[in-house]
């Protein structure tokens, strides 16, 4: 791929069709990611500058909004990342006429959204931890300048002036203390906003001076520079690396949007530690008052006998004697209604039911995902065979690989929707609204699943309808019906995911209004028209937060 005309920045902007970024400045939302952190990326992406552009492959979905789910991220090597960051910095510098440190601090503060810079300067400078040019530096530094020795306020030693450093805010401390402060701050991951040591000062350290101070400590300096670089790619999105690895940008786990990272963690936690077992025990058993083992009531009256021989009242859990009738336990009375305990048990039971429901589906889906590489292999073998037999027909098979890609993508999304479904519909809404939302969500999820299964089936059937022996025959004309079926189904699934995504929002922070999405059904034209506006709104919110 050759770089598109119009300068270096243009390819970048192509990312985001709904951002009207007049400054040509990369916006934070779509900062591409450089995948070098595991050290394996550089081997894959080419390192020289010109060929580096080959690494940027871009496949922007045609519409904004819900299409974000499909947006491809690019792999950028370190060098290019640095170049892009420097461009952003120099742009801000040229506009504001400030130093690199100032520009970086501002951009970090505004999450690299150059548009947001324009608000009142004094306030912005202060909040971003900068000394405004208008403001005079505190006099302490200037006053002390006359003396040859400076008393460092941190180690309380008198040090020669040349062994001290004064930051932009005017606070002077000895170099040893600065170095120690930086060592600790950087190793604690505070490089991005390395603050002055003076109490309640909060001014960000000048990066030129930081680098000067860290000269003798190469690993630390490298870490500092690295974090500055990384601040540029801080983002929260699904990422597809060109190596095929897919992950969430924020937590580095498997992709799970629209379920948030928290939902994902919660889900994983449940899968791992079987905390639902506890939930089940809570809902269905009571601990024996003597041996504390959980006891399940398998029938009969409310006098329950534990295996250890202890009898207790099922209603209140208290130890009792064995003498009882169907309605009464001798010498025991616990008629008072314990509403709270009852409600807790009910809730646990409901939550468990929901979880098991989603878990079963999740596991079935997981099984399918494990089998699908085989499917892809089989399809590829067929296509290869066909291409060998008749090289002219090779272009005709993109529909099959597209459909396969769509199938995998859809499976992945179904996963995410399960996690989402498990975590949603609990609080925040009235029970009625919850019930409606859940029904609609599950209905949509069900439709999506059914279609994914159908697509899977259609592709699998090819194997039977399209035996390898036939393919060697160059006169084979393909299976027009199946082909159309698969193409259509893939398109429908794409539409459905987009709709689900539109509805669930990108993070569940948004209020979910499934009813609105439902009324939109069958009117895709309108939904499409709305999408860019929604995306722009989302972008704005992010910039603001």
């Amino acid at each position, binding site marked *: 791929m050759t770089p598109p005309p119009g300068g270096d920045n243009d390819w970048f902007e192509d990312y985001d069709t709904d951002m009207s970024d007049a400054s040509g400045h990369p916006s934070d939302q779509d900062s591409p990611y450089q995948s070098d952190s595991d050290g394996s990326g550089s081997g894959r992406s080419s390192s020289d500058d010109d060929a580096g552009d080959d690494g940027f492959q871009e496949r922007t979905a045609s519409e904004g909004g819900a299409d974000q789910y499909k947006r491809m991220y690019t792999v950028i090597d370190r060098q290019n990342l640095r170049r892009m960051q420097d461009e952003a910095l120099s742009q801000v510098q040229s506009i504001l006429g400030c130093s690199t440190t100032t520009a970086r601090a501002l951009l970090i503060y505004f999450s690299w959204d150059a548009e947001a810079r324009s608000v009142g300067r004094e306030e912005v400078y202060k909040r971003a931890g900068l000394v405004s040019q208008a403001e005079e530096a505190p006099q302490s530094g200037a006053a002390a300048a006359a003396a040859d020795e400076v008393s460092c306020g941190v180690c309380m030693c008198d040090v020669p002036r040349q062994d001290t450093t004064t930051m932009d805010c005017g606070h002077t401390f000895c170099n040893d203390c600065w170095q120690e402060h930086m060592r600790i701050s950087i190793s604690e991951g505070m490089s991005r906003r390395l603050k002055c040591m003076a*109490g309640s000062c909060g001014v960000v350290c000048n990066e030129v001076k930081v680098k000067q101070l860290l000269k003798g400590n190469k690993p630390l300096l490298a870490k500092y520079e690295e974090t500055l670089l990384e601040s540029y790619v801080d983002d929260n999105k699904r990422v597809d690396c060109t190596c095929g690895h897919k992950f969430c940008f924020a937590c580095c786990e498997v992709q799970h949007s629209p379920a948030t990272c928290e939902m994902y963690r919660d889900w994983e936690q449940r899968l791992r530690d079987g905390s639902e077992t506890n939930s089940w025990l809570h809902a269905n058993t009571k601990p024996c008052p003597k041996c504390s083992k959980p006891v399940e009531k398998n029938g009969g009256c409310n006098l329950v006998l534990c295996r250890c021989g202890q009898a207790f009242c099922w209603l209140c859990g208290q130890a009792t004697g064995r003498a009882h009738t169907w309605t009464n336990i001798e010498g025991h009375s616990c008629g008072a209604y314990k509403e709270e305990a009852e409600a807790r048990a009910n809730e646990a039971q409901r939550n468990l039911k929901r979880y098991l429901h989603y878990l079963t589906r999740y596991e079935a889906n997981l099984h399918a995902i494990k089998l699908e590489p085989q499917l892809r292999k089989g399809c590829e073998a067929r296509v290869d065979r066909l291409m060998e037999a008749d090289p002219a027909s090779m272009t005709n098979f993109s529909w099959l690989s597209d459909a396969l890609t769509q199938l995998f993508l859809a499976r992945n999304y179904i996963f995410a929707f399960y996690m989402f479904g498990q975590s949603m519909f609990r609080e925040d809404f009235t029970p009625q609204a919850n019930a409606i939302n859940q029904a609609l969500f599950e209905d949509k999820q069900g439709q999506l699943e059914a279609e994914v299964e159908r697509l899977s089936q259609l592709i699998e059937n090819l194997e039977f309808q399209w035996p390898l022996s036939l393919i060697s025959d160059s006169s084979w004309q393909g299976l027009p019906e199946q082909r159309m079926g698969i193409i259509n189904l893939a398109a429908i699934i794409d539409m459905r995911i987009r709709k689900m995504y539109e509805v669930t929002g990108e993070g569940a922070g948004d209020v979910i209004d499934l009813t609105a999405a439902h009324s939109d059904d069958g009117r895709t034209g309108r939904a499409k028209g709305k999408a860019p506006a929604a995306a722009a709104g989302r972008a704005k919110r992010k910039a603001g937060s």
Partner: protein
Amino acid sequence: METSQLPRRIIKETQRLLSEPVAGISAAPSEDNLRYFNVIILGPDSSPYQGGMFKLELFLPEDYPMAAPKVRFLTKIYHPNVDKLGRICLDILKDKWSPALQIRTVLLSIQALMSAPNPDDPLDENVARHWKTNEVDAMNTARQWTAAHAQPQ
């Protein structure tokens, strides 16, 4: 205990704490560990802690002054920003710590916190709720606790 390993800053701070004590606060290093201080803060006037003598412990970690000292009330105190274990919710002991702050400033801040409890940023939920719903009653409890637990022996 050998003083030669102790950073100069700690020595200087200790000397100054002993030679120029702050009103209502005394802090002295322990004999066997010069990073461990026994602290006494007198309850500030016109606070429910008035007349009380509050013992605290203060420890200077290895990274001090780059890391904040660790401070804890040893005397029971009814205060929304102090929990049952005596731990204190104070910003300069956490994220607002700066190496330019000192033992002296930390103890002054704690004294100020005793004068002006902040129930909006509580460490002990129950005490804070008490403080917010019925301040007079909460202050009474604090006074009772002071009388019961914070008297000089």
